[in-house]
């Protein structure tokens, strides 16, 4: 076996092994601890799990490409809330009154455009000023949240459109609408990152920015496009979620950035850039959601979920480090 091959196989397969472990553990533990008679691996339950993964998962796909670039976006939670408000508020604007249900695609489009624009603004600032993405998006996390409050103060924004709710609650081929969006986005970003020049450039820039510049890649516009993508996806996530719920609080989406980054890191993306893929991220998203649902299933409360996810994140980082160090020789277990 090639030196490091075992370490590599362990790393790429680790998240799926972890998911399998979770499934077995919660199924067995559920037999003894669960209050409900239903099995954990119930089909309905698994479908619901995928649907509940969608809001974090859709954003996580965008975070993967941004982090592969060597950047980070802390403002996604605020962008999520702005897009939700644009969606719900624009449906009540008098200029769209005559549209009937055609107001839905218009509202969707406006919300998605808002998200993409806010993302692009982050990217433009990173590009033109050269300030680190961590600081730029830390700032815009505050700034965008301020914009959220400007809409409606501390009051919630609500609007229910029943056509839209029916669409969001529909199940096509057994999967919920939100799940289809998650799968679609996963496929689209997978294609972008593995089958296009843009995707290859993303890895090149994250791996070695100097070298990428010397190779003639226009790093600035490239990064800006990726920030626009994550902004767009944060808006898409909001649009899918709030089509169903119909009401947004100004604090919604807070801490989403932390959940998203946790999922992406669990999925094997390097925080320093240059490595990572959306399939792993998908695994990370599912693993987190499984953990939340599973712990709920065996009667643990939310405090345990936070504790366990935090410890797992650190453990994954530790194992990853061990594999990286030892992979260069041969893995010793």
């Amino acid at each position: 076996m090639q030196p490091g091959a075992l370490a590599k196989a362990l790393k790429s397969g680790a998240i799926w092994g972890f998911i399998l472990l979770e499934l077995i553990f919660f199924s067995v533990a559920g037999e003894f601890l669960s209050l409900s008679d239903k099995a954990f691996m119930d089909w309905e339950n698994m479908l619901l799990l995928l649907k509940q993964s969608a809001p974090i998962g859709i954003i996580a796909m965008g975070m993967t490409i941004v982090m592969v670039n060597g950047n980070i976006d802390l403002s996604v939670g605020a962008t999520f809330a702005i897009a939700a408000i644009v969606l719900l508020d624009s449906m009540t604007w008098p200029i769209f009154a005559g549209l009937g249900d055609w107001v839905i695609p218009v509202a969707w489009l406006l919300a998605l455009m808002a998200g993409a624009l806010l993302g692009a603004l982050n990217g433009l600032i990173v590009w033109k000023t050269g300030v680190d993405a961590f600081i730029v998006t830390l700032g815009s996390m505050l700034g965008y949240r301020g914009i959220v409050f400007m809409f409606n103060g501390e009051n919630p924004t609500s609007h229910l459109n029943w056509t839209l709710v029916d669409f969001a609650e529909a199940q096509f081929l057994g999967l919920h609408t939100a799940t289809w969006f998650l799968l679609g986005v996963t496929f689209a970003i997978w294609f972008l990152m593995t089958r296009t020049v843009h995707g290859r450039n993303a890895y090149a820039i994250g791996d070695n920015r100097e070298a990428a510049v010397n190779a003639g890649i226009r790093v600035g516009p490239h990064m800006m496009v990726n920030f626009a993508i994550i902004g767009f996806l944060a808006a898409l996530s909001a649009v899918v979620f709030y089509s169903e719920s119909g009401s947004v609080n100004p604090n919604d989406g807070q801490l989403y950035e932390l959940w998203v980054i946790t999922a992406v890191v669990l999925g094997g993306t390097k925080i320093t850039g240059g490595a990572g893929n959306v399939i792993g991220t998908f695994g990370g998203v599912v693993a987190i959601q499984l953990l939340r649902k599973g712990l709920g299933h065996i009667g643990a409360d939310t405090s345990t979920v936070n504790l366990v996810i935090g410890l797992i994140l650190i453990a994954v980082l530790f194992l990853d480090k061990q594999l990286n160090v030892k992979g260069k020789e041969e893995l010793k277990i």
Partner: protein
Amino acid sequence: MAALSKAQIGPILAKQGILIAFAVFMIAFTIASPKFLSVDNVFSVVRSSAILGVMALGVTFVVISGNLDLSVGSMMSFSTIVVLDLHDKIGPFLAIPAMFAMTLALGAIIGFLVGYLRLNSLIVTLGMLSAIHGLTLTYSGGQNMDIADKEGTWFSVFGQGTALGIPVPILIFAALAAFLGLVLGKTAFGRKIYAVGGNDTAATFSGVRRARTVFNCYLISAACVATAGLIQASRSLGSQNTVGQGLELEVLAAVILGGASLLGGSGTIFKTVIGVLILGFIQNGLLLLGLQFYVQFVVTWVIIILAVWLDIAAKRGKLWSPIA
């Protein structure tokens, strides 16, 4: 001629830009609102900034050593809840050292993971943010924590008392800032922190123990968080589990505003204090002008990016980034 004066202005702006910005702000607000510089108002601003400020002092050490600490918010919730709970169980005399010991233990865990195991500090402290939040909820059972006898305890002195006419939180903040400023600026330990943050390979070769230095920075950060938790608990004598939620990023904003580089190796306690005061006075000034609280979010956004941008623009001698 113009080029010459530009060359002279650049370094001055780079070094003292944050002070100049602070002065401009203070003058502008004073003209706009006469109440702004009154003693009462200044005290009230500094007092309400003290909790954030004390935490920012500790985070400054961590950032100079080239690391991040995103766990300070949830750690502050933890120490607040713990000290309030123990106050009624074992009395304030024992509760305070017990709370400090528990918070320092958390800091030691982070210091061990980042210092000795060399794990990425962003992810470790992100994990600890979540884990400590879970720990706090488990400890309190999800309940709010209140002191039973709010009138009869001397515990409120740290948050509500005054000494020599000055509110105690301000005194704690000032004393801690002076002490930590000396530690960072005048001791061998302080110089080691700059060395590790500036170039840890070079520091290691010159005999600085990187792991131990980073470990100590996280201990200092935890001690500051415990102090902030003490002030918070004493001020309100009751608390929710989420009292420190989101503070980690505000603290980081203040430290960055003070000019510390996230790459490590630069920053001072004095500049962090200025960063904290700028955030506090902007918030207060905008409120005095009759603007809604959320306007300060947007203003803070603009200021953070402008401050960091001008700082690096002065260093590289060009306004726009060289990225193609």
